[in-house]
């Protein structure tokens, strides 16, 4: 499949890619294009509305919010992508384990998945985040550990159906080891879906991270969009109507998420045309 051809044909993919790439590039070149530094405080212009010198206005320490939003992109994207990758790796592993080897292991993993799906994840994240250390790494791990369940469920159902296909059965009859079958037959059939699920879980991870920081869990040292929202809330910018402090970070979050989601959904349709006709399995 020619990637360029697919991108050209699929307008959703095109729009999503443009948005996503724009933000990634902005995050990378932020230090070069930001007009002010993160620590450039200016006591003479505190909490000023947007103007030509400060495009997004200034915060309560006189910092330029436009620059802060640019710098914040880096950790937002980094944490989002890393936790999505880790969580889908866990999900892939668990899904194959529980789908391929039935029995007690399958039962156990399915129960854990059921539990994790039914409990509102953000509540558990807040609790865990306040219990464990609040570094970025532990936040990434917490988000990953609490969001692999839906991925594992999808992977498991694919593995269950692939396992019964004739060529897998034939390989088994010829005496192939489980590991070989998983590597040669199972893995190739679930990897495309895993890629899609990874991309689709990036927005969730980004939102979870921002929500955690906003709720005061996790360190505010690594500047991300959640940090700006947190400071906007703590400094009382909501009740005094300072919209330039609170609205831009959220708009960036939403645009970014929609961009990534468009890419994921378009990819899902391209990689698996059968999906369009598939019916939901009775629960």
């Amino acid at each position: 499949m020619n990637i360029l051809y697919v991108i050209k044909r699929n307008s959703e993919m095109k729009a999503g890619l443009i948005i996503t790439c724009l933000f990634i590039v902005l995050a990378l070149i932020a230090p070069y294009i930001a007009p002010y530094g993160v620590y450039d405080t200016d006591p003479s212009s505190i909490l000023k509305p947007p103007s030509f010198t400060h495009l997004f206005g200034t915060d309560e320490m006189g910092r330029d919010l436009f620059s802060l939003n640019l710098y914040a992109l880096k950790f937002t994207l980094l944490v989002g992508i890393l936790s999505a990758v880790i969580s889908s790796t866990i999900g892939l592993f668990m899904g194959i384990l529980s789908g391929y080897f039935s029995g007690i292991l399958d039962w156990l993993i399915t129960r854990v998945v059921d539990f994790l799906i039914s409990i509102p994840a953000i509540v558990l994240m807040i609790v865990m985040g306040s219990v464990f250390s609040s570094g970025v790494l532990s936040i990434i791990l917490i988000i990953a550990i609490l969001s692999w369940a839906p991925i594992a469920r999808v992977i498991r159902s694919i593995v269950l159906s692939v396992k019964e296909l004739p060529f897998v059965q034939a390989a088994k009859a010829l005496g192939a080891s489980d590991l070989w079958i998983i590597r040669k037959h199972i893995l190739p059939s679930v990897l495309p879906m895993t890629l899609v699920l990874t991309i689709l879980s990036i927005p969730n991870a980004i939102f979870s991270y921002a929500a955690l920081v906003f709720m005061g869990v996790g360190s505010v040292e690594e500047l991300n969009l959640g940090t700006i929202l947190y400071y906007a809330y703590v400094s009382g910018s909501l009740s005094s109507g300072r919209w330039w402090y609170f609205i831009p970070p959220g708009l960036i979050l939403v645009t970014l998420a929609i961009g990534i989601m468009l890419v994921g959904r378009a990819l899902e349709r391209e990689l698996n045309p059968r999906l369009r006709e598939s019916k939901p399995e009775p629960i």
Partner: protein
Amino acid sequence: MFRLLPGDPISLMFRDLRLNKDQVDYLMRVFGLDKPLWEQYFIYIINALRGNLGISFYYKQPVSGILIERLVNTLILLIPSTICLILLGVVTGSISAWKKNNFIDKFISGFSLVLYTLPTYWLGGLLIILSIYFLRLPVTGMYNYGVQYSGLIDKIADLLTHMLLPFVTLTLVSYGSFTMITRSALVDISTEDFVKASYAIGYSEKRIFMRVLLKNVSLPILSMSAIAIGTSVAGAVLTETVFAWPGVGRLIYDAVMNRDYPLLQGSFLIISISVVLANTIADLLYGILDPRVRTGGQ
């Protein structure tokens, strides 16, 4: 798990230099903090089963009492908004599926996608800012401070004005996903054979939609409602925090801030129980509505 937190609850709870060693030891004994961890856990479970969730380190009151009071406040907010979002979601989702690929459908789908991605607390904040500029609605708490009410109606009116913004936030946040789910369930069902058969019989478009499609889509919608309750609870935690609504969600935020383990444990327990309960009810209803999943007669 909560005891892994750094910081000693006793030193937080009684920040008083007048306490000597003996008194600290006595307090440790009263709260059972001198026993090994596994024994503390065991005692906690036994007590929890009896309805005793311990004493809050911060409020110095029984956790169960605080929780019940806060739970009522949360439910005042949560129940109307969940009902409202399910009804609205089904209606707009149906319209969207009926006018498939029409501009109405495109508009509704786009709108739901945007709502679905909006972070709860940001939407809440947005509404607060808008209300500051245009509506002048109260944005924090449940009631005005220090107001003497002339009667019950006054009090309810005050409650309702305070409730409006959190209610709208909570409804809108889950409404988008519910609309999308309803639409996709309806679109999926419309490719089934029995729908084609209905067309072949010559039923009118309207009759097929009302009698055939909506009837069959009620099952997926039911199971999605259980999930919607879970997301609403999660949304409630964030919404209550933004609007300082004194419910269980705000309680979690405060408990995290005050390092109040018994309260945190209790709040989490009550949220888990209510979500599991909602799921169980949905499962049972599912069994009543759909004979295929009844497994009793094997």
